[in-house]
């Protein structure tokens, strides 16, 4: 497993918080997903070995929670709300814009590796619908124009990083 030293340190820190190692399964998975973006088979086996479990025990947990990703994800995770208010205010259109701009499909990694676009349920900001979360940042009133603008920002950052 290729985890950042910080992640490893946090993992070692979190395990003794629990009476039985097994209980640290969820926190460990969160830390790994935060670091790598998704939970690979290798990660499952790594966690199992770390917590003295069998891989199947960890696999059960990973598949139970839909928010653990079992596939790689783009550098940025674009979460478009599709619950009632946002849906009424054009959330689907917003989503389509993101897909088109990055030439990708829902749930997939865009060809440039920059983003993964997905629908999520209510982000608790219904008053400013449609809303989008990019990684941990909330963007409000994201109509198609604003979506295009956000895409432009992400792409600009990407080309800056490459040079």
């Amino acid at each position, binding site marked *: 497993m290729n985890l950042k030293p910080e992640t490893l340190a946090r993992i070692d820190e979190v395990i003794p918080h629990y009476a039985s190692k097994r209980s640290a399964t969820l926190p460990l998975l969160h830390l790994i997903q935060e670091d790598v973006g998704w939970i690979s088979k290798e990660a499952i086996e790594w966690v199992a070995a770390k917590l003295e479990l*069998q891989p*199947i025990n960890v696999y059960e947990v990973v598949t*139970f929670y839909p928010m653990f990703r079992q596939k790689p994800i783009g550098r940025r995770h674009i979460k478009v709300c599709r619950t009632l208010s946002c849906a009424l205010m054009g959330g689907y259109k917003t989503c389509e814009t993101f897909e088109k701009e990055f030439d990708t499909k829902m749930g997939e990694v865009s060809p440039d590796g920059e983003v993964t676009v997905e629908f999520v349920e209510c982000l608790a900001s219904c008053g400013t619908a449609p809303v989008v979360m990019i990684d941990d940042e909330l963007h409000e009133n994201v109509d198609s124009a604003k979506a295009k603008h956000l895409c432009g920002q992400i792409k600009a950052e990407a080309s800056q990083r490459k040079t």
Partner: protein
Amino acid sequence: MIQPAKPDLVTVNIDGKEIAVPKGTNVIDAARQVGVDVPHYCYHPKLSVVGNCRMCLVELGMPAVDPVSKAPIMDPATGRQKVNWIPRPQIGCATYASQGLHIRTQTAQIKDCREGVTEFLLINHPLDCPICDKAGECMLQEQSTGYGRGYSRFIENKNVKPKRTLLGPRVVLDDERCILCSRCIRFCKEVAKDDVLGFIDRGSYSTLTCYPGKALENNYSLNTVDICPVGALTSTDFRFKMRVWFLKQTNSIDTESSVGANTVVWSREGVIHRITPRRNDEVNDTWMADSGRLLYKAVGAENRLASKETLDALIASAADVLTDAEGAIAVVGSGRSSVEEQFLTRKLADAVKARVFLVARSGAGDGILISSDRNPNVRGALITGLIDKLPSERLDTLAGGIDSGEIKAVISVGEDLTSAGITPEQLGKISIVHFGTHANSTSDAAKVVVPTLTVFEKAGTFVNQQFRLQKFAKAVPAKPGMHDDLDALSRLTAAMGGASLPSDLHELWEVLTKELPALATTTYRTLPETGLLLDATPWSGLRFPEGETLHFKPAASEEGVKA
């Protein structure tokens, strides 16, 4: 024998019937003792309790007492102590008997609960009983009939899931039938110590899976098929071959090792279709190894021996061979023979004044239900006096005797001499009388071959590693040209001038009871199906090879150290 400590008994009341049960007995088991069936799926007496199927709901109550004085509160209407019932039903599998516990299983609420649980279990169940191997022994089928509503209100589409996932070489999974009881998962983890199964995804998409890249291939995998309450797990060997209700069940013993797991042999019209474990809490609980389930294939094996001659003719020619070699005869007995056969082998050896050898068979013990002694009945040979010390794997002394010309004839009772270290040249130097079931180099070299029976075609007893005498019954009749071991051995003994002994099992047992001190108080007829522990003290000085297995701890080793 050391008496087990008396368990604390508590009295519980089940549907008005009082019964004293050991503290800690759960409601399902307690109810069974008064003849009340509490339907259940996930609970298995030999696995941990998880309480996830909810079929075993019952009403619970405790006798009412005054909170301050603790004096019983009486019900004026009945004149008995009032019972405080818990308003909501509780699961019986995870409720343990305590003094005064009251249980109701027949109320309208419980009937409703059972109908509700059954309805949910059947929502996504494919109801393909007509093509399901489990039909006829399916808990879901039985309990849906007994406790279900009897008709379906479900008009939506059912979930579609994989129908034939190969979990391992011997087990196939039909995910649609699975009711997610987790018995198989717990078995693998707790008994087989091979934690590879689990549920992935959730809700109605939950699917039983083997961890990707692993397989359910431990030597106990088929027990999951036995305990699966539905037809989700089926055996590749038995799948689609036979309807269980056509099969005759015969109690038998697994001959793989000295553990002596209790089994049931399932046959129809003289053909065996499967072997499953039979519960014996002192020996194998409800389990057996996969390897033991395939042993029945030996019955119809191609190299099975059969004779054209009558038994009389065979015995006559055997007697001729032996008479020629008088005074230079050895007997190779077997730890695979039954107690009765070993007794007769001893008599035969006495009649021809032969020295007796036995061949040990060993392999790695798995710590569960296969011990390192791969003979089922070496202890029987000790009890019957066939041998007085533990056998070795190689017949080196016999080989020496053959080379020196001391031994001119060998009677082999079911053993292959070559695999015990006798060379083909040595085989060539002696005349062999061979009793056996399958062709091997010894039967090829023998002057006289008496084809005999497998454990499935005869009855008798074995003594397992705990010195537990266990009986097995005849499951299928023998084919023509194969002869009953007892009959053959007693006739040859008589022909060689030895005692005339009965070949009928029950009559023979009268002789055994009289002659063998270890069996003095035993009769075949009264031997319990779960076996009888014999007094092992006469042999406590021997160092038996077995290590620890499920219900066996080697005791002799410590004593051996002390001595």
